[in-house]
């Protein structure tokens, strides 16, 4: 399937960038004219992944978060969110709803939200090397895309 647009973004793991990341992705995919609900789903999933990198991967430090995204001809969007932080010891366990190492005020729902709000999610992580989350969602274009 042909890629009709793509982008890359690198920013430091500061919490004020959570909103920057999700609004940038929202703006990038706006050419597909998504519904309010589709847009909210994607913004929420991006916010969860970026928050994980900030809260867990770069817990005691500030590092770079890398986002790349592609839009395909059929309306498929892929979003890759990568960090070079601490990595996740047990990805399967981390993806269980309510599991958290983030303390009292963290709900432990980040991956559950990403799984539920996106069509596909893949997590690759290595201790000491970092984590890459790749997500996919297809939105049926309501406008003819200008390639």
């Amino acid at each position, binding site marked *: 399937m042909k890629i009709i647009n793509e982008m890359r973004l690198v920013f430091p793991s500061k919490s004020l960038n*959570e909103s920057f990341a999700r609004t940038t992705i929202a703006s990038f995919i706006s050419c597909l004219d998504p519904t309010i609900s589709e847009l909210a789903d994607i913004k929420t999933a991006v916010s969860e992944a970026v928050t994980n990198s900030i809260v867990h991967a770069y817990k005691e430090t500030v590092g770079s978060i890398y986002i790349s995204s592609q839009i395909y001809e059929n309306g498929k969007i892929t979003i890759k969110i990568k960090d070079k932080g601490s990595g996740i010891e047990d990805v399967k366990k981390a993806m269980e709803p309510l599991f958290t190492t983030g303390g009292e005020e*963290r*709900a432990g729902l980040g991956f559950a*939200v990403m799984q539920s709000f996106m069509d596909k999610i893949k997590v690759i992580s290595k201790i000491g090397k970092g984590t890459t989350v790749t997500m996919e969602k297809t939105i049926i274009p309501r406008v003819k895309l200008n390639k």
Partner: protein
Amino acid sequence: MAVKIEKRSGCVIATLDGDIDHHTAKNIRESIDSEVEKTKPKILKLDFNKVNFMDSSGIGLIMGRYKLMKLLNGDLELINVSQRIGKIMRLSGIYKLKKY
């Protein structure tokens, strides 16, 4: 994100305005908790009417305030929850804590 806190006959009403994420949750939590710990209300109402966006940090915020109100033998009420924000609330299962 702004929080407006009002007191009305045994109630504390916190009107949340803007986005709720990990970045904004800390200030919201501190503003609400300082008022709740001072006035020890019977009911804490969180008003979501002006909330544009909320991720799971908002769920953590609600769960934390629910626990705090239980410690004070009080209740937490969520009001004006839009469909958009309702989706993440349903997913989290917080509706099972209490029927809103």
